């Protein structure tokens, strides 16, 4: 039994260590992408010079449908433009913005600088806080 307890402890420690390392690497990758100007292919799709959200989705992603609902709500309530990009059919744009998973939302300020990259689902509250901070 003690042997099995040790195995559980080792597996837990290994998973924790790998997760922390992967998250640190992902954060570094995101930090290096944030603050950069947008790829030219995206600039032409952004209307006006207001803050905007770029939304990366996948065609077979269930979570993306939920995220799209949140973004529709933000666009309707706050008038924030949302540019939708299918990350699987435009991988070059997705890679330029360090997209690791779908959905990913990218917050862009009025000068078209990337201010935040959010891997995974984000609530309207979280996105509104990021837009307020611009």
């Amino acid at each position: 039994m003690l042997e099995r307890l040790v195995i559980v402890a080792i597996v837990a420690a290994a998973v924790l260590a790998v997760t922390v390392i992967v998250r640190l690497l992902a954060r570094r990758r995101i930090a290096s992408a944030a603050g950069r100007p947008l790829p030219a292919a995206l600039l032409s799709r952004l209307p006006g010079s207001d803050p905007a959200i770029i939304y990366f989705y996948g065609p077979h992603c269930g979570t993306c449908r939920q995220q799209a609902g949140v973004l529709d709500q933000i666009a309707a309530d706050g008038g924030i433009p949302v540019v939708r990009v299918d990350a699987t059919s435009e991988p070059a744009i997705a890679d330029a913005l360090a997209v690791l998973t779908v959905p990913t939302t990218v917050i862009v300020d009025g000068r078209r600088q990337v201010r935040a990259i959010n891997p995974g689902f984000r609530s309207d509250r979280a996105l509104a806080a990021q837009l307020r901070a611009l």
Partner: protein
Amino acid sequence: MNAAPVETVDVTARKVHQGACVVCLAVAFVAGSSVGAWLVAAIGLVLALGRYWWPADIFRQLTWRVLEPAGLLPRRDLQEDHSTRRVARVLGGAILLIAALLLGFGLGLAWVLVAAIGVMIALDAAFNVCLLCVVTYQVGKRRMLRAG
């Protein structure tokens, strides 16, 4: 892409459910194959059956009926995606039931399946990481690049 209505869910209940599942799976492994197989099967049923029949969702029921009313845990309602989690839950439950069956036949290697499910649940509970989502996206992207 069609938008789905946004759901608000009790995150405390989700985390209690996931935490309890992980602890039970760890206890099952420590207890050994004979007792552990039953515990793995029970968690498999909580996952798979509890998705469709609420009385089987025992850890959430415990949270809603005991822990939150007693003030032991605060209820936190947040917008979260549950469509993917519901699919993952049924898949995870089915895999655990298969693993329990294999353990019942004395195949110790089935613990690898149990560990994989346990790790995925633990990552979602602790860090909100959907490992399946990352893997699905990365595999799809690579397939697309290769085809292009």
